[in-house]
């Protein structure tokens, strides 16, 4: 193996680059450590803004409170259910939409029309009220499907998938079809096994987006028990600054203005994504690069 000798200048450049990268990493990590430290601190110290990256008045009461809290446990349950269902439904629909659309218009007449329909919905999304009516008339309000189905076919994912399928040599499919493989078999036994990186990438997108979505939870729920975790969390980030009309209102706001408790809840929402990210990351980078190049 050939080794290139580093010159003095190279070392300097490297040092500068590492320095900048470390700085970037630190600026990303400090807020996370701050939240973690606040969650483990005494709430009076937290409100006073005294907590930096290590806890003051260390205690774990916030976490014990959370695990006795019915509302957040329900919300976690809703979120998990949503992510699992979305993962299954979205992947099936995206693959089934992308495979035919990735064929040429000789094999798939009017492919261009279908493609425009997909791209068109990307450009002109529906606004809130019509979406609400649709979901309501389908009797999905308050069900988990109201969160899963409206976003089940991500156009962006379909296009990524199409491009990836197109990057697989046509000859593979031709030889398979000469051997008598049906389109289903070609998709399931040739295309999908070759597309693991893009499948993993899209799966990660689906999981992260579904985990992080909060607004649909607010609109399509019937009871607060239907709130997914992020909707629940969004309701905790309160500004005690509205026009308060009586003391009871203050008291009810106060219970959520406990900064330590809110921080602990934020930490808990971060955990699942932090856990899956390292395993998916290698696919993530390779998948999105390959999928984005169009021949």
């Amino acid at each position, binding site marked *: 193996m050939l080794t290139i000798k580093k010159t003095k200048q190279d070392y300097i450049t490297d040092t500068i680059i590492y320095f900048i990268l470390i700085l970037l990493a630190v600026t990303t990590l400090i807020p996370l450590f701050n939240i973690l430290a606040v969650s483990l601190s005494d709430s009076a110290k937290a409100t006073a803004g005294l907590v930096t990256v290590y806890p003051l008045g260390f205690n774990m009461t916030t976490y014990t409170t959370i695990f006795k809290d019915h509302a957040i446990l329900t919300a976690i349950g809703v979120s998990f259910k949503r992510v699992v269902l979305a993962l299954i439904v979205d992947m099936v629909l995206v693959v089934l939409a992308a495979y035919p659309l990735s064929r040429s218009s000789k094999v798939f007449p009017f492919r261009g029309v279908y493609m425009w329909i997909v791209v068109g919905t990307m450009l002109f999304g529906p606004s809130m009220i019509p979406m*609400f009516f649709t979901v309501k008339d389908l009797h999905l309000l308050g069900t988990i499907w109201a969160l899963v189905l409206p976003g089940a076919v991500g156009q962006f994912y379909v296009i990524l998938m199409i491009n990836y399928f197109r990057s697989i040599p046509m000859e593979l499919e031709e030889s398979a079809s000469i051997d008598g493989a049906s389109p289903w078999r070609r998709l399931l036994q040739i295309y999908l096994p070759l597309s693991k990186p893009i499948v993993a990438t899209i799966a990660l997108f689906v999981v992260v987006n579904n985990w992080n979505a909060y607004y649909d939870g607010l609109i399509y*729920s019937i009871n607060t028990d239907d709130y997914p975790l992020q909707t629940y969390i969004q309701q905790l980030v309160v500004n005690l*600054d509205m026009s308060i009309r009586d*003391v009871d209102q203050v008291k009810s706001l106060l219970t*959520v203005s406990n900064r330590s408790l809110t921080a602990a809840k934020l930490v808990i929402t971060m955990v699942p994504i932090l856990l899956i990210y390292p395993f998916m990351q290698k696919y993530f980078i390779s998948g999105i690069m390959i999928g984005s190049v169009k021949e």
Partner: protein
Amino acid sequence: MKRTLKAGVSTSLLVALMLSAACSNSNNQGNEESPKNSTANNAAATATAAPAEKPDPYSKMPELVEFTTGNTVSTEVNMPAGESFENNDVQKWFEENLNVKPKLAWTTSDQNFAFEQKVNLLIAANTIPDVLTINVEPNGLNILSKLVKAGMVEDLTQVYSDYASPYLKESMKLGGDDVFDPVTFDGKLYAIPSLSDIETAIPVVWTRKDWLDQAGLQEPQTLDDVETALKAFKAMGKSGQLPTQQNIYNSDTASFDFVFGAYNSYPGQWIKGEDGSIVYGSIQPQVKDALARLAKWYSEGLVAKDFMMNDSNKAVEAVAKGSAGIFDGSWWAPWYPLPDSVKNDHNAVWQDTVLNGEDGIAHARGYGKIRSFVVIKKGFKHPEAIMKVLNVAQDANAKKLDWYNKLTFEAGGKYTDAKMGLLPVSISAKDPHEISNRYKDIMAVLNGEKDVSTAEPETQAQVKTIQTYQAAADPFADMALWSGANNFYVGAAGLAKNPVQQTLPAFIGTTDLMQKKKTALDDLEKQTFLEIITGKKTVDDFDSFVTKWKSMGGDEITAEVNTIASK
């Protein structure tokens, strides 16, 4: 189809009226058997004295009346196991005594206007529940006019005059003659309002008494005193800056409201002008004087250089940390942010007052008189049943009902910490000056000028809290008790020190033109005010702002507001 429905509704209404009138006699006897419920007794007595067909505000409905409603739920709800809004002792009381039962159609969080969003969606979808309680903030009156225009809510004029209890009617009168105006359309009453504690809007100046004593200063009375105190605190090694935030006015905590108030100016409020017409507060010449003062403070460093980057949570960090000894807040500051301050420093002693303005009078901003209101869906068969619930709710909220106090207010009560409103539908009408009057009443009892047993139930309850606190071995062990006791004992005291002259808004709500043009005007205003305070513009630029504001649609909006208000 519609016609038959209407006919059906009015027939059943008639039947209900007749039935409840017929039952009123037997029910009176039922009420007398429960001596606990003194109001019900009084009301029942008046009802008996009245002609026989007079509807009874407290009688039991002949048949079970179920109604659907939507509700907010706090994330911190703490109900006893197995119980809920639909199933608890308070609801049972209503079912047994009034034969009325709520059904929750949906719930939302109580934060970030989730409820208002839901209501707007449901109006668009035409599926509102039978009974709804809507807050005036942020745009409740707008929602109400939408509901009325769409014919979705019931006219309550007759129901209110027939079925509202004498106590409720009396309490509403305390709000003044115009209290029903915002919920009345073409002479018809479409909603039953809850009244604001308008004194809650008064900006008070909180100061650390222990530091002032150390510096040999008295509690500040004027803006000049505030400057002196800030400079003295700085000399003592504390923060010489006023905790302030980006919302410079109409904000409860850490705004400049007290400065604007001192100049008798009310930015952001529609107020009565000198000629009697309604004018916009932000463009009045008094605002210019207030801005000049703020610009001076900013240049002298009495206000943080980057205050426009802070929200109120950030601004009060200095209070909690124990570096700031003076801030603008509300009378309820013993709930927020003071508990954190005394937890971090047990020696902190806070006091509050309303500053005397430049003309020697303590001026303050106000709220609209109505805080929220209850509407009933068009076609709901028994609006009088809801009115009866509201009668009881009014008594309950005035702490007149022993059974309700025991369950929900007194220490150790089954639902005292439930953090959930348990009344099927609620309303509250109190004297708008409830807080300072209550304070005087409480102090009279504490000073021994008045006997506890003769005091009103609310006073008794508050006195009990203060005495429990004073008897506690460690005053900081239970911070909720600390806040509860000090709220009146210390906080409300500030409202009673100087006689306050409050300016209430002459108009509340959003008009059509406002929806189109007000955002741009507000942006212009905010930018101009901030630039004047930070010295990027001179104070005289205020005049060109006024001209621009008027030409950008401000004049049209003002005319529209005056037309609506004169109707």
